[in-house]
């Protein structure tokens, strides 16, 4: 007799279970999947899991891990991101809410970016203190007065969303610079279609496969020349970058050239790539390297990844850089807490998606509260794209908290604090069978002549029991995300 596959019991805490309602019965949009799961013997799922792993490995869908050990070559360090077989399902109603909220937010943040590099109305109106913007390291003075095509700075955005209840969705991060992960969204769907065709037959799952087409349309819409005359290139730091697979995947799917910095050069008139036929002009550069490395003549002089002279050419409108330099300030943690103000200021509407409550440690009252409640808070450093110099109160030792207290007191302006959220849980296939695990969601939106969004996104799941950390570097995995049509 096989063990019952699915954990029936609900966790005793207040975690929102996306599949099961409070009485333990499945929510309507999960009913078919739940019944199907109950019928699956564990050995079938195990076999499917092995099959999925071999699909990903054969296709080379790997990411690189850096260990600092020089004896090993990069090739020995390719890892798979764990893939969880059980899809996460969002109802049409849930998705409508997310879609409206994301579109509102990415439009507002793009208006904000255009404004702060031009008339700075939001500062004049006294809605955000000038120093929060102008003293921010991510504020790019080279962009002052420059209007990119269609006034769009951030064309490709990955909005990180977490959920704590039926209609309680929070934006955790806006990722306005070079968000990654979309290739996993697409390949996860391919793998699921291959592994479980019968589940797709039983559900109306909105497609995601047209994302590369939407991306191409988005990039062509901001080209300095007509779409049909546009040459697109994806700029990668190279084969050793952790997201190289994604760079090459997207270039391929769009029919664009995948280039490295040394494949490119500029003259007064244009950006060129070095082809076997000689120089060929590039009109739109989808760069997957940071601002700092784009152009050694403008930014970091030691950068070998970028193209000398690129920024002058860009400002002259001869080439479009996507996302625009300077877009990163919109996802800076020092700006994050102001986003509700930003949405209201530029759209005249109330924000549809909530922000996580945030204490700005620069403000004395907030700082006092944070210092009193360190063991229950997450404290994050502002600037940069995250992951460094943060404190996760609930899992930190007393010593770590004491140390962090000193750092925080010394430079309170560098920090914000947020409560630890009880992330919603979805069924995952674990060693112990099917059990709820915490998840987040990164839908990808595309902004140029209009906002384009595919229904779904990348769901990341914390595969360790009780863990809230969904990062792939710390035991996180991914899942296919299904948005059902009505």
């Amino acid at each position: 007799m096989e063990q019952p596959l699915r954990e029936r019991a609900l966790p005793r805490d207040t975690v929102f279970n996306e599949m099961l309602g409070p009485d333990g019965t499945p929510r309507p949009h999960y009913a078919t999947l739940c019944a199907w799961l109950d019928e699956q013997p564990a050995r079938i799922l195990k076999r499917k899991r092995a099959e999925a792993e071999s699909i990903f490995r054969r296709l080379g869908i790997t990411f690189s891990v850096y260990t600092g050990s020089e004896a090993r070559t990069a090739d020995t360090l390719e890892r798979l991101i764990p893939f969880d077989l059980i899809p996460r399902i969002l109802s049409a109603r849930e998705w409508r809410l997310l879609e409206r909220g994301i579109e509102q937010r990415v439009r507002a943040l793009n208006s904000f970016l255009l404004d702060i590099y031009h008339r700075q109305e939001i500062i004049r109106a006294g809605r955000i203190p000038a120093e929060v913007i102008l003293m921010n390291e991510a504020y790019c003075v080279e962009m002052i007065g420059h209007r990119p095509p269609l006034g769009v700075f951030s064309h490709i955005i990955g909005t990180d969303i977490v959920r704590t209840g039926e209609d309680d969705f929070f934006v955790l991060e806006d990722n306005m610079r070079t968000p990654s992960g979309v290739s996993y969204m697409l390949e996860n769907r391919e793998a699921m279609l291959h592994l479980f065709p019968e589940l797709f037959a039983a559900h109306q799952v909105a497609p995601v496969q047209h994302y590369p087409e939407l991306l191409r349309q988005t990039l062509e819409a901001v080209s300095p020349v007509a779409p049909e005359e546009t040459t697109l290139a994806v700029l990668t730091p190279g084969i050793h970058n952790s997201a190289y697979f994604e760079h090459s995947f997207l270039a391929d799917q769009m029919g664009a050239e995948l280039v490295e910095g040394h494949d490119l050069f500029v003259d007064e008139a244009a950006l060129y790539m070095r082809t076997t036929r000689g120089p060929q002009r590039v009109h739109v550069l989808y760069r997957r390297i940071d601002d700092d490395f784009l152009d050694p003549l403008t930014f970091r002089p030691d950068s070998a990844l970028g193209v000398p002279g690129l920024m002058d050419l860009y400002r002259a409108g001869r080439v479009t850089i996507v996302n625009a330099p300077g877009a990163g300030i919109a996802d800076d943690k020092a700006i994050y807490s102001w986003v509700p103000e930003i949405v209201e200021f530029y759209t005249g509407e109330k924000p549809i998606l909530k922000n996580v409550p945030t204490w700005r440690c620069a403000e004395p009252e907030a700082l006092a509260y944070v210092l009193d409640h360190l063991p229950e808070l997450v404290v994050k450093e502002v600037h940069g794209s995250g992951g460094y110099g943060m404190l996760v109160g609930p899992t930190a030792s007393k010593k770590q908290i004491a140390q962090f207290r000193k750092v925080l007191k010394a430079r309170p302006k560098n920090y914000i604090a947020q409560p630890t959220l009880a992330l919603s849980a979805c069924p995952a296939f674990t060693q112990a069978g099917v059990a709820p695990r915490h998840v987040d969601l990164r839908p990808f939106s595309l902004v140029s002549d209009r906002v384009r969004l595919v229904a779904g996104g990348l769901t990341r799941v914390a595969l360790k029991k009780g863990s809230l950390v969904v990062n792939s570097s710390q035991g996180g995995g991914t899942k296919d995300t299904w948005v059902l049509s009505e």
Partner: protein
Amino acid sequence: MLGRVAASLFWMSRYMERAENIARLCEAGFRISLTPKVGGGYKEEWLSTLRSAGVFDAYQAAHEEVSGENAINFLLFDERNPSSVRSSLTAARTNARIVRTKLTRDMWESLNDTWIALQAVSPQSMSNARLPDFLDWVRHRTAQFRGALLGTVLRDEGYYFSQFGAFMERADNTARILDVKYYLLLPDHQSVGGAIDTYQWETILRAVSAHRSYRHVFHEDYRPWRIAEFLILRPEMPRSLRYCYDWLAVTAEGLSERYGEERPTAELVRSTHQLLKQSEMGAIFQDGLHEFLTDFIDRNNRLTVSLAADYYFDPTA
């Protein structure tokens, strides 16, 4: 197509061809080492094999002694040897990964599966009993890759660059094998005794998998000058210099046609091709077989330099 991409397609194919050739060389070397008292003994044979593989200096830097075990390990697995089977397959895959988007799925999966399986093979596991199976496996995998390439890839410029890589490598390999043992093939070679010479000649033919096809073409016992002719001038022998340049000539023409112009590479291919078409073995022996082979290897090397310059392989150049 980016020049850097063309370069990666060229090197991907070239390294796959090299892995295959090294496996063949190793197979021939291993076989003769099992034969008692050949020539200067099995040590001499491994030295010849290392020379044919073009890795003799690297071997000497890594090992003091020549032994069968060391030589096999060096040829197959040693990462200090840039031409070992492991290094070659890894380099082929790295280049393939760079140009993933230019490969068909069949090509990528073939190459990647090979590389994944190779990760599980350790030099320690390579006993004499398992070596022949492993060498077979390498040949099967490289053959499968070639089949995937020829069967699925678009005949666009990328295809031509890959063919340049494969056939320049093959020509170089055959020329080296001949040059290391050229003295055995001279018409005035002083025979040291029937059986031993036959083993030596057979080793040369085995290194290019031609010991059976020789008999199909010549219907007679091994004769040294015939072996030289077979591997240099015969167009029906798929690893002969002539065959390689027949293929390269078609490749160069195809590329020129696609580009609507000839670049210096085309002329270089044509002149070597003409040389092979017009030469006779008598004249080659008269002018010196060794000199002929050295000149050929040099021409073939110059072709790599010329191709890289004509099609902007190196973005920093």
